[in-house]
């Protein structure tokens, strides 16, 4: 369990690396979710995104999500959650979550739970940069 990884980083994320982090001989499946930067928001072309976090609290909240997963899906072997901050270009991965489990059902469910909960509780903010301006996502009026 101490191999689980919960981190906020400022470098590009690697799906291969995170898959390796949840490798476990008792695993029958690994599910990986990668959140990537989309090229538009509501039809408005996005140039790039900027992510900011309260990193220590974000890592604590990621850890809580990992603990909740272990309580709810005993078949889960390992969990890794990494969020990237800083400037990200279109197509780059902002968040990677990997869950290994004895059976695929647990891995899919736990991974879905992890990303949905992350979006609600982890203190990370993103700013969308457009050709003609910028806006912090989630705040009316930018």
């Amino acid at each position, binding site marked *: 369990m101490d191999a689980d990884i919960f981190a906020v980083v400022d470098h590009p994320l690697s799906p291969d690396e995170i898959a390796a982090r949840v490798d476990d001989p008792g695993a029958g499946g690994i599910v990986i979710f990668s959140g990537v930067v989309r090229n538009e928001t509501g039809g408005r072309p996005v140039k790039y995104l900027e992510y900011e976090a309260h990193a220590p609290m974000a890592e604590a909240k990621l850890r809580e999500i990992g603990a909740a997963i272990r309580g709810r899906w005993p078949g889960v072997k390992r969990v890794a959650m990494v969020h990237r901050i800083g400037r990200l270009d279109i197509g780059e991965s902002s968040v990677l979550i990997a869950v290994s489990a004895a059976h695929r059902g647990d891995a899919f469910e736990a991974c879905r739970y992890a990303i*949905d909960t992350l*979006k609600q509780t982890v203190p990370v*903010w993103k700013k969308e940069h457009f050709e003609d301006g910028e806006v912090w996502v989630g705040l009316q009026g930018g």
Partner: protein
Amino acid sequence: VRVRVHLFARYREVAGREQVDLEIPEGGTVQSAWSAVVERHPALAQYRPFTLFAVGHDYVEDDHRLKPGDELCLFPPVSGGRDAGPAAGDARR
């Protein structure tokens, strides 16, 4: 009670600073600190309904009492807000 308030993302930009040091009355709450911050940075007042508060690594309510040396964080909504599910995205099209 002396507390330090940290501002993030939009709030930092609006206030033009990352932190504000405050002196609030004994028994002061998160709400007392918010009011004191808004007094110095009135442009933040409009964000009150969306604001999340945290002390240490935990979210707290606005009636949470602050202790000397507490560091209070003021958060805009976390970034999942608009992207929470496919329904939200589809509805815009």
